[in-house]
């Protein structure tokens, strides 16, 4: 018997599901019921005609647990396909954040300057606040948000990660 690998890996898994009531609860319940981690989860309809939604989950665990997670997801009745984006070749991951910074004077100018460096867009502004919209990897968002903290960060809303494989094939086929 091969020795059991106990290293913890991080994976991005895409799940194509029938967009029926309770399907998200089914997926989340599977993770909580079996003690799996969810670091990020996003869901949205991707094929309205066929009534299909795509759930992108970032999870972590040992290789054995990660295989279990995929097998458990795949056996849910409304699941059409499970794709391990971290394993099945290169993929692109993006996250969007809305970041509200309130302040006056130098701090306010500095926040705008940093936003410019990070290519964040201003989507709302007042005399004493900005709302920045920023898209990128989660790491990049983390850095940006950390920089905003001393400059008057008052609110953050993040979408969670969406991801897609590179190349010409996909889950919708």
């Amino acid at each position, binding site marked *: 018997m091969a020795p059991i690998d106990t290293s913890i890996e991080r994976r991005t898994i895409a799940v194509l599901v029938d967009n029926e009531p*309770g399907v998200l*609860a089914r997926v989340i319940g599977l993770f909580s*019921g079996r003690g799996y981690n969810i670091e990020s989860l996003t869901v949205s309809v991707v094929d309205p005609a066929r009534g299909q939604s795509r759930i992108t989950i970032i999870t972590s665990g040992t290789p054995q647990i990660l295989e279990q997670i995929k097998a458990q997801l*795949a*056996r849910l*009745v409304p699941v*059409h396909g499970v794709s391990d984006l971290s394993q099945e070749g290169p993929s692109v991951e993006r996250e969007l954040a809305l970041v509200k910074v309130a302040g006056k004077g130098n701090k306010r100018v500095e926040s705008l300057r940093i936003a410019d460096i990070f290519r964040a867009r201003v989507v709302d502004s007042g005399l004493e606040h900005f709302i920045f919209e920023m898209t990128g990897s989660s790491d990049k968002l983390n850095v940006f948000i950390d920089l905003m903290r001393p400059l008057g960060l008052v609110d953050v809303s993040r979408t969670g990660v969406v991801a897609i494989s590179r190349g010409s094939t996909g889950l919708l086929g």
Partner: protein
Amino acid sequence: MPAKKMTGSQMLLKALCDQGVDVIFGYPGGAVLPIYDALHQQNAIRHILVRHEQAAVHAAEGYARSTGKVGVVLVTSGPGATNAVTGLTDALMDSIPVVCLTGQVPTHLIGNDAFQEADTTGITRPCTKHNYLIRSVEDLPRVVHEAFYVAHTGRPGPVVVDLPKDVLQATSHAYVGPEQVTHASYKPRTRPDTKAIEKAIEIIAKAKRPIIYSGGGVINAGDKASRLLTRFARTLGAPITSTLMGLGAYPASDPQFLGMLGMHGTYEANLAMYNCDVMINVGARFDDRVTGRLDEFSPNATKIHIDIDPSSINKNVMVDLAIVGDASAVLDALLKAWTKGEHSLSQRALKGWWKTIDAWRERDCLSFRRDDSVIKPQYAIKRLYELTKDRETFITTEVGQHQMWAAQYYKFEKPRHWMTSGGLGTMGYGLPAAYGVQIAHPDALVMDIAGEASILMNIQELSTLVQYGLPVKVFIINNQWMGMVRQWQELLHGSRYSQTYTASLPDFVKLAEAFGAHGLRATKPAELDDLILEMIDTPGPVVFDCQVDQKENCFPMIPSGAAHYEMLLGPDDAAAKPVSEEGMVLV
């Protein structure tokens, strides 16, 4: 021509008929009144009125497991559905195909905390294979057919269909038959991968100490799978052991059969598992009752795992080769490939392996101290076996020591004759399961081997037996203790018997009579045979109070956290080998 206009309830019954359902187990209530009204106006489907919804599910399980068909349950909303949850979880753990129809408050009241409202799909999501809430009468026939399809294909399991009352009363022309139902995402794999079969043959052909470890999946795959398993084992000449759920798939009296394995398995089965070099798991899931301590589980074996559920692979035990598919299809492919390749095992190695196994067998691990003054529970089950083995006999059990003794001492020669709650371990399973079996097999002898504690968990079902004249024999191994829990307290908790003695048990003979059944009692070994024969010959339901040695424990036993070779063979062993600290936290 458009289909005839029907109410939701009529469509439901038509769909059940089209699925070949002839009996349902249920209990009426406000939300399902329209279904009961429709049931009243037809004769195709028989309704068995249970006394508790949990029992309805267990009865459907007994029916399903003994026939291979889907068991059907009908309960009302709210408490009807929540009472069914234990049964549903039981069916999920043991992979039993059940469709449970639950009433629901009308759609416009859902979410309003209406009378007898419960979030049934929410509550049953983790304890079903799948569930549905039907919001429109047009969806009803399709969903019901889909529910049956999901319940019995792939790895079988329970499916809940939640039916709001207004949907049942609405009318529609939209009836469709089962043949028009397809499923886009749910497509279980049944045919094995050819490459995996070739690889398996390669591994098996080199085996010197092979073992077949078969489980409930073989039973679920149909009687053909059991026949193929028997042929496969005989072709190889290899020893075979079975899980609790798999008993009967291979004839127990056959010399190649080593008995059950695991926590209360035989010495020879567990040591053969520990020492084998190739393990062929057919339809079992490396349950913790079977493996014992994982890092010492069969450490030198190349493991092949045949399972229809990909999520069973590498869940508890990492295997060297996985074959995903239906047990019948895989065994068939293996046999064909083995014969075609003219393979055979090294006879010299096999002979040596059998010699080793025979030496283990000589320990006679199921022997027990006989006593003339008090009935030993093992003796009671041995006699029960001897006196009923030549009949068509089905056995169900409750959960605990009696269950393990039944598994050890009753020999099952055929599949589908042994119904027990393996995964969930549900006390109260056996009596309703038994009448579920009896309804499917009216002329057979159906016995619930019970414990006095377990039987009280669904004792009200005696009333169901009497109402339908179902001649189930309830054989209570009565030691006045929750025996298995007491055994663990003795081994793990310094014999501090906290709350495991039942101080005021009913008089089971009088209790039987109060329900309108017949009661018998045995207290001495000398009278046991005559009373068992009297039980069998008594028409109608019988409760047999078999008062046994109160102190007897169930051996062999692999204590929790121990390995297969660390079996306790008897009370002396138990005293000499205390359970490890790691083992104490396990169940």
